[in-house]
């Protein structure tokens, strides 16, 4: 067999390996219910329940942060994150958690939050300006 063909086969084999590894290693998006059923790590998308308490008290533990999140199916769950409270967390619009269930709590290893983008933030800003005007 020609050297070129052997090399070609190697390249194709690696390419297939890359695709399979991506497929097998990729996580899935799910809900808290899925997380509870499977018990494996996955990504949960949802939003912060702003009415319930956010716990981050560095005077007690600088690495414990907990909050309540509602997933896309409307199920609410307590989330615990080992670390400090991400900056600007209260303003987040959408949260993506990576982690798994432990009892009735979801233990997140990673939090990715989407803050309001410039374009949806605009309305909030306008009301702020009005409030300032009234104060003057």
């Amino acid at each position, binding site marked *: 067999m020609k050297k070129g063909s052997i090399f070609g086969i190697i390249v194709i084999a690696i390419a297939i390996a890359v695709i399979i590894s991506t497929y097998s290693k990729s996580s899935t998006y799910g809900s808290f219910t899925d997380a509870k059923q499977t018990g494996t790590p996955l990504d949960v998308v949802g939003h912060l329940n702003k009415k319930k308490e956010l716990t981050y008290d560095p005077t007690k533990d600088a690495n414990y942060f907990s909050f309540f999140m509602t997933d896309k199916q409307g199920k609410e769950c307590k989330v615990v994150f080992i670390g400090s409270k991400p900056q600007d967390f209260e303003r987040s619009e959408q949260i993506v958690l990576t982690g798994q269930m432990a009892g009735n709590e979801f233990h997140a290893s990673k939090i990715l939050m*989407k803050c309001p983008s*410039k374009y949806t933030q605009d309305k909030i800003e306008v009301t702020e300006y009005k409030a300032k005007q009234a104060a003057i």
Partner: protein
Amino acid sequence: MDTDFKGEHLFPGHLGQLFIILAFGSALLSTISYYFATVNKNPLDKSWHNLGRIGFWLNSISVIGIGCCLFFIIYNHYFEYHYAWAHSSKALPVYYIISSYWEGQEGSFWLWAFWQAVLGNVLIWRARSWENSVMTIVGLSQTLLSSMLIGVNIFGTRFGSSPFILLREVIDGPIFKSPNYLSFVKDGNGLNPLLQNYWMVIHPPTLFLGFASMVVPFAYAVAGLWQKRYKEWVQPAISYSLFSVMILGTGIIMGSFWAYESLNFNGFWAWDPVENASIIPWLTLIGAVHVLIVYKNSGHAYFTATFLVLISFVLVLYASFLTRSGILGETSIHAFTDLGMFWHLVVDVLIFLAIAATLLIIRRKELPISKKEEETYSREFWMFVGACFLGLSCMQLVVVTSIPVWNAIFGTHAAPPTDKINFYNVFQSGFAVIVTLLAGFSQFLKYKKTESTRFFITSIVYLVFAVLVGALVIYVTGIYKSHWIYAVLMIAAIYSVLANAKILAEVLKGKTKLAGSAVAHIGFGLLLVGAVIAAGTSTVASINNTGENFNPEFNKTNNPRENLMLYKNEPVQMGDYLITYIADSIAMPNHYFKVDYKLMGKDGKVKEEFILKPNAQANSKFGLVATPDTRHYLFHDLYTHVSMANIKLDDVKPDEGHEDTNDDKSFDPPVPHEVAIGDTIRYRDGLIVLKALNANARLENITLEKNDVSVGAKLEIISHGKTYQSEPIYMIKGGNGFDFARKVEDLGIKLRFSKILPKDNKVEITVYQQPESKKPYIVLKAINFPCINFFWSGTIIMVIGFLLSIFRRNKEFKAV
């Protein structure tokens, strides 16, 4: 309904919009004219050619015009324009106005168009016989870029997004009904504090020059296929590709440096989709440079070279689609949001992909593909193999980064790998091992054919040497503790450095032609050495396993706890350092926290002491934005980053000079102590000693009458090794007793001289302590990054290598 709005400055916006339309029109004119100039068979007819030039020059002027109008608007704070309102504020220093250009999508498209205009003019000046065909492609790209800025509605769909759109056109709000709405809009949103960094002034222009310049090799390849000048396009394409990889590489590393300095990605590289998007085309183009050289020297690998050049530019467009269309959604924090340009961007990618594919298919039979097989012991064969692996490495990045795209196409719900960084690191290290080994031993090979015994001896001698040096480095730095692939990569990278150093030594003997490649490869090797050590062995210094047990289940997971709590003036041991948060200093809008580091020797003496000043902006719009401070050493960097602090927002003015007299509520219940002179009071954080009573204590604005008495209690407070003085006062005025409390802010205590007890010869001192949680504190994270300097110096060396290569290739290439 037309309202006559007051105070708007519509002229610069209208002028800017006119320039945008003109830029689009002239680019289109230039493209069409150059097309006809190319297909025109009559060499004496220069009319299309001249029209093409005029069109492109007109476009260049318009693009500059757009930039000037936008600058004028931002500089004058015309917040009636959405762009100025969204990306700048009155407090923004002038040099950051430039940064606000590229905070928004429109500004960065403009930047791209600007660089492409500059490059187009260089081509008009230099390309000679290639001008017509090459400029047709550059013009087409310029037309599509300009169309992104148009922002007009055609048949109910908006095309592009204009930077000159007005605030009231974007936002629906009752206030925009009022003609004097501008008097409500006092200030803009401001620039994200993360971008207020000098690196953010120069990183985007460099990166976009890199992106923009990739159109040039693409245009040459297309022109070569189109005009059937199959072999000639390669030489100019090598020079321009080298330029592109040099600039884009520099731009990427600048971004990496910014990320490292500001710690926004927790290090210098985090495989965020935005970072991947910039490196994807770099990898294919660096592969392309190698196979172009292979083709030039041996006639082999023509198809691979052409394919890689073509795909690189398509990938630039694909990368800009990824980051700008909003498709990355949940996978990246930094991508732009969708401006309604999703399909516009898709079309842009498809047009150029179609051009490349069509030409390759039409011309497939005519391509000068070598039928002869490469020699195994030839440099060209292994360079070709290396380029293929660069392509594979790129493919892995594309496949994984594009997960949201696959989801959109196939309707799946896959998410990126849970441990993304590790996943990429291991894969990309594997590819890097092969690439660096090849970059090493192919230096011992010659083009065409090499004598095999000599080659084996040299390469094995160097390999043994590399393994020895590598083993030492791996042992000293502790890389063996992490994944084995890092150790292998370390040896491979060292091998590449050593092999190329040998070539460089020969250069000094006179073979100067080879200097560029040797230097670039040494740089690349060093860069990897630094990256492997820094990424593989960086440690969090502030591991903290104290903390209240919120939940036993939670503590079982035994995760490292990376944040440390520091109360003001209370030293905490962190690894070898004794660290203390000692003071604050405020330079609005930055709040600096002074953290004192003492390196303690075994004998308990201070070996080294320094102060780091991490800062945070408590920005009311962006939240707490922290910037770390770093202690740089030759072989490692120590980072200090404030993850949390109880500071006020920057737009809350401190109440100056007005002290709340009754703030007892903010303290724990008071504790009275009866003491005589010389007695000691113990409290939570230390000792208070009553040194003396001062019968001459006076208060500034109170005059004492004959029978009035004023006594001060001279107190010395010793807390955590520091001594403070305080003198609360007791006063009898007009027969009534008063007392004047004194606070020691640093310690969070208040002291009252509450009674005199003449019978016992004692006085009563009341101590108020702030509760623990009210005391000033910071939550700190400290990270140790070893050997990062290799990474930066490797980059600089690599860029020098690219420069040398460009000079060499330019000498070879006389434009025809």
